């Protein structure tokens, strides 16, 4: 039977299985291969907080979604076109999200009475025909086929069974016409010391590929053309990795030593892991005894002339709050990264949320303003981190960088930046010009940036004392003077406001006026842009504005807002930035606040927009 090839613009695949089924790895390999093929892509890993929830249970389902396209895309997609379900629980957890007409591929061997019971099925959905009315279902005996493929390797059946994810991967490679060689090369390196494991996985992948090729079950394969991205060299990049590279790039450009202090916490730990592997760049990493020691060691390093960075998630920020206040009053340059996750308290550690914005803005005692920047895509984590460092150093201020679980673990094709093209980060340490009457003046400010001089231990003649007690401006001496305190409160606020002078005009996507402006910040940018593109295609007068710096806000924001009849702000929180903007500009912003631990979809936004402007 001949196979037909169909060309499509974009595809959304979701791999779902038990935590032990290797779904993140499968998704990762499919992503890397898709990047090499040249599609634009966006991914969304979704895994449970438990390292290994009981096998076969709904709580233990781990999933990875990828959208890839021949066009420029902004999100990992809403509903999947195709679901790969490695067991009944995976099917149960994700089936409702597949659109009617979608495809389901299951590992039939995992649909045992025990697993069906664990997932809450009374009858086997692969046999009772309940799915077939709505979906195209392929029930494939993956476990059996990998067992046959590797039966002569002398490996235990348990180990061989673990290769079934590579069967699924091979099958998907065939369906979407992707090469298997890059994954074979990757396996050879990854398991260099275990050639029999390499062989078993290669056989499983080939078996899956050949299953698609030779059986008559799959009649159609699909091709997705290369995306027309701007010319350049590309790679696929995951958010936390991009962020780490951005920090290292800032250190290299500024010629400062990067000192990273932190305490492991999901979903920020990969930044610690990544930087720890780059010791050859001179990066110092310090796994501290707790979150507080993480940031305070960083403050000590910043006092000593390093580029100090700490990263954590919401609960860690709560603990670091007092030290952030110390950084504000001591006016030391550090970057505090918050990879946001679901809260409050431990909340949803592996799920995404944007609910720490008010914490970043106001979560400290006293008037303690900090610049806050938010990255918008996995690749943008690089630039946001670089920018956060540049601003921290230039203005001698701590900076908060907000990302989230979706950005941290998600990935996208990324045009490889060239270091020399990045904006310069010039360091000017304190010198004799800050000495007045023989005394170094630690708070004698740069008139334009209001930055104080950075004198570091070891510099002769610039010995000085700073601390958390209010300072007299210029001299830095302890001062309880009422007027001085008011002046310092004002100065610290003004310093942050001054940063807005660096921003150019805000870039509006669409017309500068109209029926609706959709405002976004952080990781909702992609979904908002997709929604606005779809609405504009239907001739709706809708525009999009993305806000990169939360503090300070762009100076032209107020005049932009009033040009639109409606303003809609989707946020994965209960209305945090919308609250600030309402207060700041007295504009009645509508919130779309869906706090479900997952990204807001383009469809959610379009629906809300339509209800606002009809």
């Amino acid at each position: 039977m001949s196979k037909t090839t169909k060309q499509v613009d974009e595809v959304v695949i979701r791999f779902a299985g038990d935590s032990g089924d290797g779904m993140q790895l499968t998704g990762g390999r499919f992503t890397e291969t898709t990047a090499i093929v040249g599609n634009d892509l966006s991914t969304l890993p979704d895994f449970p907080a438990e390292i290994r929830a009981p096998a076969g249970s709904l709580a233990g389902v781990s999933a990875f979604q990828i959208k890839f396209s021949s066009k420029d895309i902004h999100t990992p997609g809403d509903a999947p076109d195709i679901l790969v379900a490695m067991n009944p629980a995976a099917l149960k957890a994700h089936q409702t999200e597949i659109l009617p007409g979608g495809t389901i591929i299951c590992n039939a061997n995992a649909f045992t009475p025990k697993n069906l019971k664990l997932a809450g099925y009374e009858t086997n959905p692969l046999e009772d025909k309940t799915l077939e009315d709505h979906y195209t279902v392929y029930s494939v005996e993956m476990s059996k086929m990998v067992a046959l493929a590797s039966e002569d390797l002398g490996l235990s059946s348990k180990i061989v069974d673990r290769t079934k994810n590579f069967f699924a991967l091979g099958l998907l490679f065939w369906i979407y016409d992707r090469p298997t060689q890059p994954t074979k090369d990757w396996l050879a390196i990854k398991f260099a010391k275990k050639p029999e494991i390499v062989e078993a996985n290669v056989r499983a992948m080939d078996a899956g590929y050949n299953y698609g090729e030779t059986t008559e079950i799959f009649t159609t394969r699909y091709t997705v053309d290369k995306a027309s991205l701007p010319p350049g060299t590309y790679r696929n990049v995951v958010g936390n990795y991009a962020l780490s590279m951005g920090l290292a790039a800032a250190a290299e450009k500024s010629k400062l030593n990067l000192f990273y202090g932190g305490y492991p916490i999901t979903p920020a730990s990969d930044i610690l892991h990544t930087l720890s592997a780059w010791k050859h760049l001179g990066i110092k990493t310090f796994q501290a005894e707790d979150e507080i020691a993480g940031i305070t060691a960083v403050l000590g390093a910043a006092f000593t002339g390093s580029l100090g960075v700490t990263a954590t998630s919401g609960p860690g920020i709560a603990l670091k709050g007092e030290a952030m206040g110390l950084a504000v009053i001591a006016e030391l340059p550090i970057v505090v990264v918050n990879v946001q996750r679901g809260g409050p308290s431990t909340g949803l550690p592996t799920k995404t949320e944007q609910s720490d914005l008010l914490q970043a803005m106001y979560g400290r005692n006293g008037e303690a303003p900090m610049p806050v920047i938010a990255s918008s895509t996995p690749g943008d984590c690089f630039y946001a981190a670089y920018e956060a460092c540049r601003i921290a150093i230039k203005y001698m201020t701590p900076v908060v960088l907000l990302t989230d679980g979706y950005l941290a673990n998600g990935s996208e094709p990324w045009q490889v930046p060239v270091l020399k093209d990045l904006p310069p980060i010039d360091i000017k340490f304190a010198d004799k010009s800050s000495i007045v009457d023989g005394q170094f003046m630690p708070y004698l400010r740069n008139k334009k940036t209001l930055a104080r001089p950075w004198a570091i231990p070891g510099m002769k003649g610039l010995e000085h004392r700073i601390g958390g007690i209010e300072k007299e401006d210029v001299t830095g001496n302890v001062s309880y003077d009422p007027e001085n305190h008011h002046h310092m409160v004002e100065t610290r606020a003004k310093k942050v406001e001054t940063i807005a002078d660096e921003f150019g005009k805000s870039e509006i996507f669409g017309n500068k006026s109209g029926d609706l402006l959709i405002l976004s910040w952080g990781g909702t940018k992609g979904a908002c842009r997709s929604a606005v593109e779809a609405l504009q295609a239907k001739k709706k007068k809708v525009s999009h504005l993305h806000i990169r710096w939360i503090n300070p806000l762009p100076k032209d924001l107020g005049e932009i807002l009033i040009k639109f009849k409606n303003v809609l702000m989707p946020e994965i929180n209960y209305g945090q930035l919308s609250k600030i903007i309402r207060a700041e500009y007295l504009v009645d912003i509508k919130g779309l606040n869906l706090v479900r631990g997952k990204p807001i979809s383009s469809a959610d936004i379009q629906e809300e927009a339509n209800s606002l402007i009809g």
Partner: protein
Amino acid sequence: MAETKTTKTYTRQDFTSDQAVRWCPGCGDYAILAQTQKVFPDLGVDKENFVFISGIGCSSRFPYYMDTYGFHTIHGRAPAIASGVKLANPELSVWVVTGDGDGLSIGGNHTIHLLRRNLDINVMLFNNRIYGLTKGQYSPTSEVGKVTKSTPMGSLDRPFNPLTLSLGAGATFVSRTIDKETKHLQDMIKRSHNHKGTSFMEIYQNCNIFNDGAFSPLTDRETKLETVLWLENNSPMIFGAEKNKGIRLEGNTPKVIEIGDKWSIDDVLVHDESDYVIASLLSNMTYNPDFPDPVGVLYAVEDTTYEDMMIDQLNEAVKKKDKGSIQDIINSGDTWVVK
């Protein structure tokens, strides 16, 4: 201990800042500050290489009065901030000034972790067995039953013994001195400085406002010869007005003996700073009415410092991969070109 020796000659004045000292008149902190300023010119370090880090509390005002680099930080965190300073520049001579509340209560966690990591940082813990800055609540070193504003019927907490705590945390240098013993205080500051690794120095310090006389048995002329055991390495542990009392080990148990008919000097335990068991025995004489309080260096051993190992790893990484550029990492992985 800083790596590079100075060629300059300093005086006490060089380490005195222009800030007025604001401790209560009669506070033991004055003596500690004075001895520090007096002994620092002799340490052989360029003064720009000294850094004082403190937390919160009366003692933590200390950095303001030293004309060195200083950072008066937040409650309990000085050891962690100091760790960042030392790791950022291991050439610096870093000093932590803390108190029994700052270093053992709110910041206890940082203190023990600094000690186990063995960074070359000098900790001066002023122990006055009371909260002074907050006006007189009991502290983690206050005795059981201490009546204070927050414990009108007496405190229920069993106190920490800072010496056993630091030994348990893996400290490589553990010592104790007393604010009023100026010469000994200077010696202990020098010993701390010369020790490579974290040095822990407990300083008995009198708070004459909220806990006056807490150490008077150890400092009063009439009693101190009987109550203090002055430690000297390789010397027998002898004390008493007549120098006729000693510490003898019976099995694993220390006992006070009288040298004379029954016992001779040869029966007295000889101090060995490198012996952890002896240090342990000594530290547990604290709070024990049957024994004198040990004062001096209880324990001092050399071990690799955290920062030296960190630098070794950095050098090792450069040797393996060459000093790279982040550009190489940015460019690595599976890349493709769009034309």
